[in-house]
């Protein structure tokens, strides 16, 4: 679903020549570009997230290759990883689940609920990071330092680099939270103003329109749509959850 939404606007319309065989565009208009103006649309922002994640993936692929190569060396001595990491993984997984909960509340038009669930996500993410630090301290207490061996070196390196990325994700969540707090109920109604573009926000709870806004099909910019922002942050956050499980797996195995 996510991938489809990301890809759809990227697709090049089939017609390649003005008035060509695959449908006739309006006179004076060829096919091709989207002619988007103004701030990045939700789809553009989403594409940006995926492109960024491609770069992050390459970073971790490079670490993985190094890990595999280094593991073959004779001085490889596995370190017993602290069991606390299992609990940390649970926290991060839970944060992803809760984040989806926050998005469901947003889709239902419940801003207060969204904020609460999003706040819980931030707490769980922060708890994960604290847990990682605690895991480091446990290892240090056992006398396992960065330079103790290749396995410990990779453990500290990978958890640290992942942690830095997660810190960025927390920043994104915090930003989304702040933006949601600003989405005030419109005057005289109980609904929220899910600005889908100038002149479009009527202030009423129009489920269809909200849905449209959240799936990024509205013309409004991501800057005006906390729902789209939330979706983009969620893509990044879930990716980091999956990345942690991957890192945990290769460090453990």
């Amino acid at each position, binding site marked *: 679903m996510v991938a489809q939404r990301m890809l759809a606007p990227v697709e090049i319309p089939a017609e390649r020549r003005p008035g060509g065989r695959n449908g006739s565009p309006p006179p004076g208009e060829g096919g091709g*570009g989207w002619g988007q103006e103004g701030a990045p649309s939700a789809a553009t922002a989403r594409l940006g997230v995926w492109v960024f994640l491609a770069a992050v993936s390459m970073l971790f692929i*490079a670490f993985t290759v190094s890990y595999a190569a280094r593991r073959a060396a004779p001085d490889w001595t596995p370190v017993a990883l602290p069991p606390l990491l299992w609990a940390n993984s649970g926290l991060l997984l839970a944060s992803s689940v809760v984040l989806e909960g926050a998005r469901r509340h947003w889709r239902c038009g419940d801003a207060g609920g969204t904020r609460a669930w999003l706040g819980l996500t931030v707490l769980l993410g922060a708890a994960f990071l604290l847990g990682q630090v605690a895991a480091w301290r446990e290892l240090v207490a056992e006398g396992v330092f960065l330079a103790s061996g290749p396995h410990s070196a990779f453990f500290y390196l990978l958890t640290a680099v992942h942690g830095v990325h997660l810190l960025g994700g927390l920043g*994104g969540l915090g930003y989304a939270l702040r933006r949601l707090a600003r989405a005030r109920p419109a005057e005289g109604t109980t609904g929220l103003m899910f600005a889908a573009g100038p002149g479009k926000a009527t202030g009423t709870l129009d489920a269809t329109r909200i849905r449209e806004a959240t799936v990024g099909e509205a013309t409004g910019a991501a800057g005006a749509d906390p729902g789209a922002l939330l979706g983009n942050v969620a893509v990044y956050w879930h990716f980091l959850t999956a990345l942690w499980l991957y890192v945990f797996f290769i460090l453990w195995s």
Partner: protein
Amino acid sequence: MAHALPHLDARTVGELSFWRRYIFSQDHKVIGIQYALTSMAMAVLGGVLALFIRLQLGWPGRSWPLLGRLFPGGMPEGQMSQAFYLAAVTMHGTIMIFFVLTTLLTGGFGNFLIPLMIGARDMAFPFLNMLSYWLYPPAIVILLASFFVSGGAAGGGWTAYPPLSALPQAAPGSGLGQTLWLVALAVLIVAFLFGSLNYITTVLQLRTRGMSMLRLPLTVWALFVTAILSLLAFPVLLAAAIMLLFDRLGGTSFFVPAGLLVGTTPVDHAGGDPLLWQHLFWFLGHPEVYVLILPPMGMVSDILANNARKPIFGYRFMVGSMVAIAFLSFLVWGHHMYTSGMHPLLGTAFMTTTLVIAVPSAIKTFNWLATLWRGKIRFTSAMLFALGFLSLFVTGGLTGIVLAQPPVDIYFHDTFFVVAHFHFVMASAAIFAAFAGTYYWFPKMFGRMLDERLGRWHFWLTFAGIYATFFPMHYAGFMGMMRRIYSPQLYAHLQGLAPLNVFVSLAAFVLFAAQSIFLYNFFRSLFRGPRAERNPWGATTLEWTAPSPPPHGNWGPALPVVQRWAYEYSPPNAAQDFLPQTAPAAVPVGREPGALGGDGERRR
């Protein structure tokens, strides 16, 4: 990450403070010019470092009292120290590759041209774009600070091979200077990543109406493919740099093997693998040379077509070959490591992929020649430099085929033959394309024309200077002269090369001096050049439909709508010898299928 500040409205830009408008600007054109000007300053610095190298190689061991007074650290009593020489070699390479060519071509031209050529008002994420540029000066400061620390700047070569780069005690330049080198590179990589992210998203999402992918000018295609390359290659170097920093500062052993001695002191490391660094480095390093040569290929394509007044020949093959080059560039890194120890079969595999990459390169070359064939060629300065690019690219490309073969490379490895090869194919060719692009787009960037007469002087002196400087280096390489050598006079087999080295050094000085013509022309025209009209070259692409220089937001209230491909030059039965991409479809039947490329045979 994904979110950018709300776009600045074209109407409010007049109210922006000086700082927001010219310094911390989010306008892609200002950012492009910032990148270009900073790169130019760095190019002068990189050039001066090259002169130091040539000074030592032309007159090894000679004393230069005046320089000794200016640089007491690097040239005590006028004699260049070994550490300073090695630092000059390392920093010349680092600066020219990362801090000049990459930043100028993708940061400068990429930023300026992409939105203008696709009909967008700005990049997709203007704030991120500003951030990208503003990571560049700190990276420069960190890099240059290394000249002033104990032990001097990094001296382990621009490839920073461990253990020289991993052990602070290994050599004078392995100390703090190397740490700063790594940090500067890491910061710059982040800047490149922000830039690439922006370029990819912008090209995919912000094309104006009618601008299908196969109507994009080849410059945009080149910058787009380059952005994908950087995005996938630079994180690998970032990972390697982080691990090397851990080795240096944290006592880990990713790249340092056991049993090393520095002097007589055993090194406290175990089990690391220096070859791992080489693999990671060249996995970036080879795509990096295509990061430097693809944008020139695109820019030269557009400039050749414009000045030959002919459609580019084989548009689709041009696009396809760029994509093929980009893909193959990830599969050839091993050819830098033939002598590092590699299974012969693996060497053969890398030889094959390396030779295969010559095929798309040759397709491009022949397409350029076919574009020129029977064209009404205008020898503008931009055209001269574009033709110079062709010459240098072919000269350097042919020696690439020689070096691709392991048995030959084992002889030539780390000699001046390699230096000559990459200075032709990557460095000079890319610089020539950058000059061509500057002469071509200067009117659009600054609203004034460069002086064409000075441009021709600049071209001929630079062209002759490049060949005089680098061509003899092939011969020095044949004779076994090692690259990065400090004291060629000590080797019997190199003593006969002394006159040749003097000649090369003199040529290098002339080449450097000739660039002052360009700098004079550039800065004089910036203020005194004749005003440029909207479309001085009679070009088809969208940037020439905007005012010169374009305002914030590039176009008035309405964005241009694209009707045809970018190479409608000399259409039959038309009033003028070009049709802009925005010209309505009133053209003779059969000429409009822009997306089909220039081959007239494939009309409907």
